[in-house]
């Protein structure tokens, strides 16, 4: 019963990851016309803001899709029962680096669009949390290998 619950939970997480991936794709496609519309109908927004927003979004694309791919791979490993493994530690490391790259891009964009500073803060904080989870996994792997070699 518990196994069924766990696999259901992992499937739900994977669906959420795919949904975020799809949202990112939609945003990639929609940002150009949306930003044009916004600067046309809300003259208070400068057109350079829209350009900076588009540049930041497209710059975050590579780490964004890499992050989604890694999270999906991590969830697939969990479904196979591969939990405290060096492969998962590596995937978590990549996820945290992607978050830090997004943080850096938003910090640069923050010079033009102030609210990107908050996005940078959130991305950096998430990257830090994932990094700490990665450290926890590393320690768990060491403990498990010690236990495996306890007779």
């Amino acid at each position, binding site marked *: 019963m518990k196994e069924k619950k766990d696999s259901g939970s992992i499937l739900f997480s994977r669906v959420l990851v795919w949904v975020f991936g799809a949202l990112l794709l939609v945003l990639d496609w929609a940002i150009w016309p949306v930003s044009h519309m916004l600067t046309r109908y809300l003259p208070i927004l400068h057109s350079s803001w829209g350009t900076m927003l588009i540049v930041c979004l497209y710059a975050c694309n590579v780490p964004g899709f890499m992050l989604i791919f890694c999270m999906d791979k991590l969830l697939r490993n969990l479904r196979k029962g591969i939990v405290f493994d060096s492969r998962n530690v590596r995937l978590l490391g990549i996820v945290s680096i992607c978050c830090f790259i997004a943080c850096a891009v938003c910090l640069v964009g923050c010079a033009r669009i102030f609210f990107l500073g908050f996005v940078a803060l959130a991305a950096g904080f998430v990257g830090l949390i994932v990094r700490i989870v990665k450290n926890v996994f590393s320690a768990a792997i060491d403990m498990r290998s*010690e236990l495996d*070699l*306890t*007779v």
Partner: protein
Amino acid sequence: MAIVVNLDVMLAKRKMAAGELAEKIGITPANLSILKNQKAKAIRFSTLNEICRVLDCQPGDILEYQEDMI
């Protein structure tokens, strides 16, 4: 690790095979192999107790401290 496991010596003295010992003390042959090949990081007292009971020996006959092994 400076602790050396002399299980091979005791098995030879008692003329017992490793598989037989593993079965009698209730651990897998793989785990016993880890112990025999100096790869173990820790041993439970319960396991040591069983080894000494089956081989009719003292813990010192199985475990030895060698300074220059570090």
